[in-house]
């Protein structure tokens, strides 16, 4: 695919042109934290960020999303009939998404877009989205992407990879969606492919060398599921957990939701909201019985899902891209890197409480 050179003084003009055919999202600093937001006209994405507090998953998969509306007013002919709401799926582009977050959409896709089941909301939003990624030249010390199937210059999931090259960006077009966006922006200056390719490769090596945290995942698939489930370290791992939903809500790959009907007078909405396996309510049965009745059950479920069940079911590695958000945001410092290593080495030595 082609590589373009975008002079930084042409950057804003291009974004401006894009707003004619796309809704634009990008990282914006709000008080202390960066987050992805829909950009107002003439608002530029702030690409100086290390990482956003929340992942951009909500752009495609909002925390609360209305699916149907209905009326309970029996004088109306259409009462009690679910009607699909007219959600907008007009073209949108996310500018400055990190490689880890872009790859995360592909992991999530395995759940929402399968041969058997298609989630129309997620798929329509995903298909209408162009991901313009930004290579990550300053990974955080808690990032472990290179051992989580990703990397600071990883291209999977992106439509365009931007690389910061001082007074210009190199834009490597990776898909047709990306090509379309480049055209719409009017960034038409092709870069010298060989030279640009070399530059990108150099940047990639330098960025990868900065990654200082790693996980070992090589044994996860071969370890017996029941053995891992019964491992003695879960009590130690789960002790400090307060069972909030922070890790799951900041995670770009957590996909669970709950469907709720909300009535106001005689009109109602059927919506879905993010849910979290950390919450007791997530699994409580109609009888009141809860098969995951303790926090140990719930903590184990989260890590077993990401690092064992997913690995076994899809055979594409762990359900984690190493963005490090859960490590940085957990109020009590439960660290998936530590848990992953405990799981991966289970059975190879006498299990300790690994401090």
């Amino acid at each position, binding site marked *: 695919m082609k590589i373009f050179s975008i002079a930084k003084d042409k950057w804003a003009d291009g974004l401006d042109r894009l707003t004619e055919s796309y809704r634009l999202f990008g990282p914006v600093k709000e008080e202390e934290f960066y987050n992805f937001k829909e950009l107002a006209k003439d608002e530029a994405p702030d690409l100086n960020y290390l990482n956003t507090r929340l992942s951009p998953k909500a752009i495609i998969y909002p925390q609360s999303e209305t699916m149907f509306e209905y009326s309970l007013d029996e004088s109306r002919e259409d009462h009690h009939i679910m009607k699909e709401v007219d959600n907008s799926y007009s073209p949108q582009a996310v500018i400055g998404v990190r490689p880890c977050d872009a790859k995360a959409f592909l992991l999530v896709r395995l759940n929402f877009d399968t041969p058997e089941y298609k989630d129309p909301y997620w798929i329509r939003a995903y298909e209408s989205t162009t991901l313009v990624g930004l290579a990550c030249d300053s990974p955080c010390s808690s990032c472990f992407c290179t051992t989580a199937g990703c990397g600071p210059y990883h291209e999977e999931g992106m439509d365009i990879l931007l690389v910061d090259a001082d007074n210009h960006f190199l834009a490597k077009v990776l898909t047709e969606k990306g090509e379309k966006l480049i055209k719409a922006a009017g960034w038409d200056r092709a870069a010298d492919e060989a030279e640009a390719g070399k530059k990108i490769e150099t940047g990639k090596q330098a960025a990868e060398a900065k990654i200082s945290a790693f996980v070992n995942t090589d044994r996860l698939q071969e370890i017996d599921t029941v053995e891992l489930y019964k491992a003695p370290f879960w009590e130690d791992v789960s002790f400090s957990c307060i069972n909030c939903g922070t890790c799951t809500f900041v995670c770009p790959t957590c996909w669970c939701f709950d469907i709720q009907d909300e009535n106001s007078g005689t009109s109602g909405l059927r919506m879905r909201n993010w849910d979290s396996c950390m919450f007791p309510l997530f699994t409580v049965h109609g009888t009141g019985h809860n098969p995951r009745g303790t926090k140990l059950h719930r903590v184990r479920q989260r890590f077993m899902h990401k690092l064992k069940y997913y690995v076994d079911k899809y055979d594409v590695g762990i359900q984690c891209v190493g963005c490090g958000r859960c490590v940085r945001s957990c109020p009590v*410092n439960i660290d998936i890197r530590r848990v992953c290593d405990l799981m991966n080495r289970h059975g190879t030595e006498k299990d300790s409480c690994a401090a």
Partner: protein
Amino acid sequence: MTSYIQKIQEVSERLLKECKVDMVIGFRKGTIPLMNEPYFARTPEDVQNLVWDSNCGINLANYLTDRKENIGIIAKGCDSRNIVTHIIENKIKREQLVIIGVPCKGMIDKRKITAMFEDEITEVTEDENNVTVKGNGFEKVINKNDVLQQNCALCIHRNPVEYDELIAETVEEPRDIDRYADIREIEALSPAEKDKYFEDLFSTCIRCYACRNACPLCYCPTCFTDEAKPQWVGKSQDQTDVETFHFLRAFHCAGRCTDCGACERACPVGINMRLLTRKLEKDCFDLFEWEAGMSLDVRPPLDTYKPGDPDDFIK
């Protein structure tokens, strides 16, 4: 406060060796700067993992709820007051506990320090008065008092109120602190301004419930937000539901909250929900001269009736 570590380990080891307790609840060193992890030491060998510094802001009383073992627990001022509240509310028995008191000099505000630097912080060390922050290409020494959590800067009960062992000599309690300047500002707003103020305050809430779950007072078997039959609160990002959760939770903490700051500290998006609990704390003091968790022998104002209780609110 790092000088406390040796003493904490000694006491914990002795308690475990003498079988006075089955476990000691404290902190182990965190895996990232400015964080430690709540931890339980079960054997004398485990105690070497126990640490203490200014990153121990999580309230450990939260880990006592309904436990059956005999427990040693490290307690700074606020933790000890929440332990007292736990005992009063029958969530743990006094005789199950060996309270290892830690005179506290305040916990540092992770968010405040992080916000001071554009680049990532990779190492933070501290001595008695200063915090040294290091990152890629920078190093800065900050006066610890300038970066305390707000609740710690306003704290007037730094020493444990109830304890069996004391790790160090008590520290001087700050006096003449105006604890409620910001609350008075909100009180002075008109209803419409308050409405807007709280809408803005909670606009970034993601309903992860970290505030509730980090709180030692929030131990209900099923929180009202989680009730499904009937469901009291909607689950979406609807502003009314978000605020209903925060307001109701705060009311449930009236006369019980010690302003330990665990809620605000735990919040992943930096909401200061303490503005609600501190208003109630202020009211409890104004109306009943009550401060939560100061004594095992006095019932809290909201579960007792006295003929002299203020009744001006009855119109």
